[in-house]
């Protein structure tokens, strides 16, 4: 609406960040209390108080919460925050509100590596465990994402530095190639392998355990902190690369950092959860609609909103068709695709 009137209405920074925090808390409370074993609000308070005081109460709600639900919720927060912040970074870097972390190949590279591990694992790595959430799969996926991102980065180098249009095209080509590789693998796969591959490709927080939470959480936290240091240069980049350079911004360094941060954040998240689509696309967009395009707000608020969205989607994924669990990517796509189409309408004059 604000575009039509040509006037900008923005909520104050504090309101936006508080609102994002409240949304995240609500999603956390909802996710904590609902599930196969329902935990009432009163019980939840009790468990949280006990956990805070270091008391280990042998109640079932305590066991369920501390061993199953809390790691899952925390992995969801890390995943959502990582994807949201990475999405904001990529959109700022490509100067395009329709950009997505997948553009630089992290998800497709991770997916291809995961596919290879799942389908060809028995032959390539016969001694290692290859189940969902296992360290073999996680590290293979992480390395795959990194390798493909690096390949796309190298392909987009030209004399004057990194050309973003080249990067976009290289990304599209490599993503298509990875898709073809996955298609080939799915033909070779047994039914059981196909099922785990499918599950991985649609994302799930089901593999959450404390070790993964600690690792992914740490990487995402560092990535978010590093991303915030890029907010002012990203604002300058909105004027175009040459104007940003005239404002003293080292554009190549900003690009390199944004890509490395995104690769680590999305690479670690995807390795642990599979491909969770659309969060990186829609979270920054929603923030920009209420808070304006200043990256000093868009980056942190996208992290909060992304985390809230993933927690909410995961809660639905766990409960909607209980006892069976819906893939998380299905739900984020159900929210994300209509949003994406609305955005296309909104930006149709600028593409």
């Amino acid at each position, binding site marked *: 609406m*604000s*575009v039509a009137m*040509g*006037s*900008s*209405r923005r909520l104050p920074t504090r309101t936006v960040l508080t609102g994002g925090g409240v949304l995240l808390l609500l999603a956390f409370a909802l996710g904590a209390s609902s599930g196969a074993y329902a935990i009432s609000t009163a019980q939840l308070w009790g468990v949280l108080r006990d956990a805070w005081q270091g008391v280990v109460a042998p109640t079932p709600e305590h066991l369920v919460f501390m061993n199953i639900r809390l790691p899952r919720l925390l992995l969801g927060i890390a995943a959502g925050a990582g994807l949201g912040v990475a999405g904001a970074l990529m959109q700022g870097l490509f*100067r*395009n*509100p329709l950009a997505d972390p997948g553009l630089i190949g992290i998800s497709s590279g991770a997916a291809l590596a995961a596919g290879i591990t799942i389908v060809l694992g028995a032959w390539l790595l016969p001694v290692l465990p290859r189940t969902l959430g296992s360290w073999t799969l996680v590290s293979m996926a992480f390395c795959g994402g990194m390798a493909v991102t690096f390949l796309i980065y190298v392909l987009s180098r030209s004399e004057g530095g990194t050309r973003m249009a080249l990067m976009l095209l290289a990304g599209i080509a490599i993503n298509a190639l990875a898709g073809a590789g996955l298609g080939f693998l799915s033909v070779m796969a047994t039914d059981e392998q196909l099922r785990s591959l499918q599950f991985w490709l649609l994302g799930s927080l089901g593999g959450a355990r404390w070790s993964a939470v600690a690792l992914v959480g740490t990487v995402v936290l560092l990535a978010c902190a590093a991303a915030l240091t890029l907010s*002012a240069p990203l*604002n*300058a*980049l*909105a*004027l*175009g690369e*040459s*104007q940003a*350079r*005239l*404002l*003293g*911004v*080292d554009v190549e360094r900003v690009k390199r950092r944004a890509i490395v941060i995104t690769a680590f954040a999305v690479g670690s998240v995807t390795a642990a959860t599979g491909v969770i689509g659309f969060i990186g696309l829609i979270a920054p967009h929603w923030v*920009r609609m209420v808070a*304006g*395009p*200043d990256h000093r707000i868009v980056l942190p608020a996208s992290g909060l909103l992304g985390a809230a969205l993933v927690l909410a989607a995961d809660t639905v994924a766990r409960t909607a068709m209980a006892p069976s669990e819906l893939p998380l990517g299905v739900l984020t796509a159900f929210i994300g695709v209509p949003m994406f189409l609305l955005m296309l309408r909104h930006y149709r004059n600028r593409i």
Partner: protein
Amino acid sequence: MTLACIDAGLSVGRKRLLGGVHARLEAGRLCAILGPNGAGKSTLLSLLSGQRPPTSGEVRLDERDIAGHAHAALALRRAVMPQESAVAFDFNAEEIVALGRLPHRLRPEADESGIVPAAMALTGVSALATRILNTLSGGEKARVHLARALAQIWHPRPDDASRWLLLDEPTAALDVAHQHAVMVLARQWAARGVGVVAVLHDLNLALRYADEVIVLDQGGKVAQGPAADVLTPELVREVWRTQCERVTSGDGSPQFLFGSA
């Protein structure tokens, strides 16, 4: 306090955009770069701004190769108003002007918060502060970008390093009143010691406001000197292939009447 081209040129592939230009600009003066379309005016401006390194010769700021000045240090004392600039996302006018203060974010001025509003007032865009830049008219956008450039070099540097304001066709999208308002502003900034360099198409604006002009044609310098000395009907005929008559306006400033004589 000088910005100088020494035999500077720029070629892209085999195509020579600019070649062998010698020019010496002084801080505190307003210099207009003139020439027909494709003469290399914007190319010369991009060499002077350090935006592009020359492929031959050298550009020197204060007697030092401009490539030797760090980008961040240059940004504190040299601002460029672009000819056209597509801005990503829905930034409003005030946020765009505030980007001019980005180079100073680590060492803000005492009156930092007042600089952006003051710069916007100077170019007459205060009322547009909350309007989204991409919805403004071409002339309004130009004045917002001018305010951004002014905000960037608002105060003299503590080390008294020369400040430079480079304007790429600042008046192209403006109505007559705003064209003159912008040129008056450019003169005022020159009077305060800032070196102002403007690419202009309007020879009459150059005659009225510029201390000095550089005339380019086909990628080379044709003439440089005081506007009234350089800009003769003969030169205009030779460079622009247009007939004109030079008259003197009421205030004594020479002006051209085109298409006559």
